[in-house]
């Protein structure tokens, strides 16, 4: 029987950020992760730390994202100190390039709504084509305009995952790989579960297993409405640095390669690629930066976003199973800092965290009622 104080199920960006945050508070944490060929949104994402446009229609999410990116420098420094790994955090602001008047109008509308919802605390600029070209050399003639926000940035997502791994271990977190959790049972003293050949006992349980949270949550009587949304990403050969700001369609990494993406599909649990979507992404990239036309694509992949029913995070402390917490989001990179530095303390029970109030599971239930205080 393996015993641990807190058991985190899921060794991706969400699980490891929380484990790290709990370890910083001195808690004894173990993380269970699957094998080499698991889905792993943590490995397939674009690396954006993105605020602009998020939380349209749900301003607490806009607020949460803003606060997350503000915490990132402290988070990155802590990871570097504990792991020795530089995750290449850059927060120079980011651009949403708009390829049609309609897109420009829609983005502008969202951003103006968000500014108002945030009482003006929401910096961004709407740029016409010539203003955009002055800021981003090489932007193509069919780009009608863009939205810039100084809140946005990017990071190397694979170095982030590796840094989290190493930093967690440096802080005493036990990470066990190749384990698939089977059965979870509640006990008076906590939780017992079977994973691989081992049996675990934990005082507290964090479900951070991405798409696996649906099945795991069900074992604890929770309906966790998450489903896969596929994004395909293309990566080019290395280029000398030319793009110093992240954009939603095109981002140059610290390695010099250029990532191209932002597709959305309902493809079930299929993380493959398809040449038609790849061609769309390529076309869009060439519209953004025509000089990319002759650049070679080296790799492409699909990855499954963990999308909740309304697209916003889920932070639920189970009332039927006290001690179990469900965490789910599709912006695990942006939110990593706030997961480590504010969500983890809330999970640890030490701090109240008003920021999570809007993200409970009850918002999905048919008879949604306003929560009463107390």
């Amino acid at each position, binding site marked *: 029987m393996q015993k641990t104080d807190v058991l985190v199920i899921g060794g991706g960006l969400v699980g490891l950020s929380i484990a790290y945050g709990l370890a910083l508070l001195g808690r004894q944490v173990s993380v269970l992760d699957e094998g080499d060929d698991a889905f792993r949104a943590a490995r397939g994402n674009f690396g954006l730390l993105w605020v602009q446009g998020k939380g349209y229609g749900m301003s607490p999410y806009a607020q949460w994202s803003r606060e997350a990116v503000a915490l990132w420098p402290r988070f990155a420094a802590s990871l570097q100190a504990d792991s020795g790994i530089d995750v290449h955090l850059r927060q120079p602001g980011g651009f949403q390039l708009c390829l049609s008047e309609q897109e420009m109008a829609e983005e502008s509308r969202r951003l103006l709504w968000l500014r108002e919802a945030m009482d003006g605390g929401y910096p961004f600029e709407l740029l016409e084509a010539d203003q955009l070209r002055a800021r981003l050399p090489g932007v193509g003639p069919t780009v009608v305009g863009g939205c810039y926000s100084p809140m946005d940035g990017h990071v190397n997502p694979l170095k982030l995952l590796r840094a989290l791994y190493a930093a967690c271990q440096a802080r005493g977190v036990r990470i066990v790989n190749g384990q698939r959790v089977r059965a979870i049972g509640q006990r008076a003293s906590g939780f017992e579960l079977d994973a691989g050949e081992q049996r675990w006992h934990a005082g507290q349980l964090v479900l951070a297993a991405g798409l696996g949270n649906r099945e795991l949550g069900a074992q604890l009587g929770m309906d966790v409405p998450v489903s896969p949304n596929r994004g395909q990403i293309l990566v080019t050969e290395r280029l000398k640095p030319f793009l110093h700001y992240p954009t939603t369609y095109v981002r140059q990494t610290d390695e010099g390669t250029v990532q191209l993406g932002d597709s959305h599909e309902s493809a079930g649990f299929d993380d493959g690629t398809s040449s038609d979507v790849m061609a769309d992404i390529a076309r869009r990239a060439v519209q953004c930066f025509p000089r990319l036309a*002759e650049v070679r694509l080296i790799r492409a992949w699909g990855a499954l976003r963990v999308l909740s029913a309304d697209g916003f995070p889920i932070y639920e402390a189970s009332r039927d199973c006290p001690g179990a917490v469900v965490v789910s989001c599709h912006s695990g990179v942006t939110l990593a800092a706030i997961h480590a530095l504010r969500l983890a303390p809330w999970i640890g029970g030490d701090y109240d965290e008003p920021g999570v109030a809007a993200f409970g599971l009850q918002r999905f239930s048919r008879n949604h009622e306003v929560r009463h205080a107390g």
Partner: protein
Amino acid sequence: MNKQTVDLIVIGAGPAGMSAALEATGHGLSVVVLDEQASPGGQIYRNILQADARSRGVLGDDYQAGAGLVAKFLQCGALYLGNAAIWQVTPQRKVHYLIDGRAEVLQGRHVLIATGAFERPMPIPGWTLPGVMTAGAGQILLKSAALVPRQPVLLAGCGPLLYLLAVQYLRAGIAIEALVDTSGRGDLLRAWREIPGALRGWRDLLKGLQLLAELKRAGVRHVRDARDLRIEGQAQASALSFDSGGRRWTIPAPLILLHQGVVPNTQISWSLRLEHDWSEQQLCWIARRDSLGETSLPGIFIAGDGGAIGGAQAALLEGRQAGLAIAASAGKVDSRQLRQRLAHYRKALRRQRAARPLIDAVYRPQQQNRIPADEVIVCRCEDVSAGAIRQHVALGCLGPNQTKAFGRCGMGPCQGRLCGLSVTEIIAEQRQVPAAAVGYYRIRSPLKPITLAQLSTETPFTQEPL
């Protein structure tokens, strides 16, 4: 747009691909053969149509035998598309390729993967220095450009192809500095005793011995049981040092050709997510297929060395067999003929394959030349060392996809062709588990780099007539 569907798309124009095309067209199927080379022949009969008499004399009888096959293939009615680079094959049998700088896509009712083999990586210290190439590269330069080493050449490694190249060079009047053999007489004796039915391999083994005898007669220095190989040099290769016969040798050479066998080119089969089994006998991955060559994806077949290393004769038979099976599934073969011919192929293949276990055992590459020391670069595209991979395993990575995420090993344009087998074995050895438990890279499209412009302007294949 023309939506043409071909009965059979053959990928590769070596012996397996050409025989399959001959068989299938013989039954009236429409066939397109896509080949990355400029002219048919694969690697074994590379450039055979352009080879003059002198080259053919140098390259030997087995090479000559290919000329007739290639000539017949070009007459058989299959459409041959050379200089075509495949970048994606889908389970629904769409084949995406680049030709003349254009991206095209072709739909097949059946697809035959006949991609052949490439050299097993030989990651020894210094192997990335300029002046070091594979024996296969030496042979390609000989066949397709009539280029030979200017000074006495050093050959190192093991396997019949290494001896063949040495003999080919001799016949071309090239001096050989030394043949540094990582195998030895002990391997032969041990294998002979241990392999049941070892006698079945005697013909192939005899061929190898005859080649060695020719080298001996010519006075070529042949050093056996070489260990701890290291290529010396700063900006370029200058010498090979190694242990043999109880002492350390250093042989100066500006050109060193390495070889320790060939392995199946499995990029397409992995990209299709087909099941592969690890062969401890051949130290490589073998795609699962039935006795006729069909994989678990309906209509997708594999024939020849691209499935499992079996040599040219086995490839010819497998190609014929697959072509026949495909024609039969299209209703073009009467059942009695089918039964007879399949029985014939089964028997002939059994004979051909019987020799393999002995060859594999005698020329088994040494572990130290497959699983190198920490300092040796394993991933040439991203300059990742064996030591870095071991560090990632120590951190918790279980397999090559995790080590790829942590260290970029396998992320370059070769997409694991040169490092994949090494990485699987390094991780397996570090974790003390079988290679089969470690797995292999997730191979993704594009299999070959494609520009964004090409990708955006892909068109369906529209050549007439088919």
